[in-house]
């Protein structure tokens, strides 16, 4: 490359930057809604919101889509899940569901990654809270416009959703 081409390149870059800067300045900024962090200025730390109590019931929550790992409707404080033992399985294991009346872990939990069924829980499915989480009674900071698939289907076929 020659010196001349460097100069041309630099001029072009400068031109672009000036253009974009002027177009930004020219636009009116969109009206800001209250940001997630609240009205606190950026250089200050807002007080943390209060912790909310966990949901503690025995009622199943319906899933938002078929593959969703079911959420945990009860508290799991102090539940030990490690190499030594799995407190969740004390109720949700196949052999324990008779006593506990808890739902059994799904049979997919016995599959290894090649789809082969094992006799016991597959190690990759052992750590429950990787997918299943307890819930808190809290107000969502942003509105959620998620629509589940049944609603979508009923929109596509007005008058009768295929389920």
């Amino acid at each position: 490359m020659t010196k001349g081409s460097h100069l041309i390149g630099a001029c072009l870059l400068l031109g672009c930057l000036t253009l974009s800067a002027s177009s930004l300045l020219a636009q009116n900024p969109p009206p800001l809604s209250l940001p997630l962090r609240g009205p606190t200025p950026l250089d200050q730390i807002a007080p943390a919101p209060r912790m909310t109590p966990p949901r503690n019931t025995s009622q199943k929550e319906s899933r938002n889509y078929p593959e969703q790992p079911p959420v945990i409707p009860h508290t799991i404080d102090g539940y030990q899940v490690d190499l030594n033992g799995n407190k969740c399985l004390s109720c949700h294991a196949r052999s324990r569901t008779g006593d506990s009346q808890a739902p059994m872990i799904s049979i997919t939990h016995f599959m290894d990654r090649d789809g082969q069924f094992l006799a016991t829980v597959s190690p990759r499915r052992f750590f429950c809270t990787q997918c299943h989480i307890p819930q808190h009674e809290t107000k969502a900071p942003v509105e959620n416009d998620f629509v589940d698939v049944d609603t979508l289907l009923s929109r596509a076929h007005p008058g009768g959703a295929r389920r």
Partner: protein
Amino acid sequence: MTAVETPRKPSLFGRIFRFARDLWDVLRRPSSVFSLGLLVLAGFVAGIIFWGGFNTALELTNTEKFCTGCHEMRSNVFEELKSTIHFTNRSGVRASCPDCHVPHNWTDKIARKMQASKEVWGHLFGTIDTREKFLDNRLELAMHEWARLKSNDSLECRNCHSAVSMDISKQAPRAAAAHERSLFTGEKTCIDCHKGIAHKLPDMKGVPGWQ
């Protein structure tokens, strides 16, 4: 040489025996100086002092501070207790070591204290003086406590959590159902389900109710 010296200087055992015999001679004779009343009074006062001292010393060994005086307890089980509900909770009631591990009833307490002499042995000879040794022995140690609580029907739990004063309508539904099914029928005792509530668990393979 030694055979000649032995009769002149009695052995330690011989001296102790002679001292005990002399003491016994004094003790079995009636007092010729002190009145019976004074002796009774002195015995009474001495009894209070000794009994009080004994109980004070006993209570001193029944404190969280005493238990965590040894690093085996302080850096293993006590650390684990700190994150559980028996250490901090909404009502601010704390169950410390002796509340669960020493019976409150006097006779049982003394029996447990005598058993604890083995723990002194363990401390002196470093049975669990490293984290690794502690983890290796954890199953055995835990099984001792499970067996103890199982055999006394979870007495130390029930010192605070009695089934009679338990209002299951205030419990979470699944806890209420489990207590109604297993606890009130006497089918199970606390420790059968509530293992590892204050400390981390050992390898639970083969323990009933665990996977």
